[in-house]
């Protein structure tokens, strides 16, 4: 029931994740951040089996930082997406697969382009203009299909996100305690005020 949303706009990517940490019918925490910073220009948001998610996210974070140190250059968004996908695809056929779905928001400093990749626990990867995992997709995709334009500014993106957030509040069976919203662009990763 976690919400993870991503919208790619003209020069950046917006990521929104629900603040609620739930187990069964209980909300255990209202300030849960479902993202990890992979490097200066890449952010990973995740949902799935609790336990697996953070373990996997931090494993990827460590691997990508290690690569950055060894090669003296940070991996680019598409290379990260490819790497993470590979890890999930490998895990799928292991004794105990990671049940983690992720969104990767990145900004490629060489091409000056933003990138949003969606990867599920099977290792299915697609690069999309906007994406969502789980039930949130059913409620938000129609809004995004309708309002999305590829040349939007961050503010335009946040406006659509507001609509998505409102729709989710009315339709989701439990209170998801609001969204953390982060923007990835040429300057790096920053959190923005939402609500």
């Amino acid at each position: 029931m976690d919400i993870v949303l991503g919208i790619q706009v003209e020069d950046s990517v917006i990521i929104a994740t629900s603040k609620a940490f739930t187990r069964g019918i209980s909300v255990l925490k209202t300030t849960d951040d479902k993202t990890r910073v992979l490097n200066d220009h890449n952010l990973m948001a995740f949902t799935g089996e609790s336990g697996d998610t953070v373990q996997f996210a931090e494993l990827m974070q460590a691997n990508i930082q290690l690569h950055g140190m060894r090669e003296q250059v940070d991996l680019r968004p598409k290379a990260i997406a490819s790497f993470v996908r590979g890890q999930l695809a490998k895990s799928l056929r292991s004794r105990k697969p990671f049940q983690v779905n992720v969104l990767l928001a990145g900004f490629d400093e060489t091409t000056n382009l933003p990138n949003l990749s969606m990867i599920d626990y099977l290792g299915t990867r697609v690069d999309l203009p906007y994406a969502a995992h789980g039930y949130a997709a059913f409620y938000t995709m129609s809004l995004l299909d309708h309002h999305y334009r590829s040349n939007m500014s961050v503010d335009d993106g946040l406006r659509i996100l507001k609509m998505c957030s409102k729709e989710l509040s009315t339709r989701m069976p439990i209170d998801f305690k609001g969204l953390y919203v982060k923007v990835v662009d040429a300057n790096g990763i920053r959190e923005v005020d939402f609500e």
Partner: protein
Amino acid sequence: MVGKDCVAIASDLRLGSQSLGVSNNFEKVFNFGHVFLGLTGLASDVTTLSETFRFKTNMYKMREDRLIEPETFANLVSSTLYEKRFGPYFVGPIVAGINSKTEKPFICGFDLIGCIDFAKDFIVAGTASDQLYGMCESVYEPNLEPEDLFETISQALLNAADRDALSGWGAVVYVITKDKIVKRYLKSRQD
């Protein structure tokens, strides 16, 4: 599909998770030199296999100092899939190409564990394979020229995809002749 001194291979562009459409630009046809591979099935395995075959054909290219031929590639696909006999990749591959030496068109299909299905007319795979069989059986005729083959394969794919809820969302068609490859995107229903 095989024509006169030409072959064509086509796929839709939809990627979905069950009923939810996720992407309308997920290409399922890959080329390794002049050999083409269509991969339907579990998207994760489609990507994994396309990467694996790129690896293997690149190694082949450097070892042999020439590109892999369709017949050789078909056997590579077969053995690669059979290697995972008891934990298979969930895919339905199709190989199409023209042998650069004999100049003979070649197509074939596989089941998920690598059994080769040789054919001289057409091969189909995927969720709409029943519909595709129907279309191909009625629309196909032998020895079509490249332009006619393009029309035939496109109509077969488009109309089959329209009768399948899980297929469509655009299509891509490659028409391959001895010294030319034409790639065309087809617009189709987006519902």
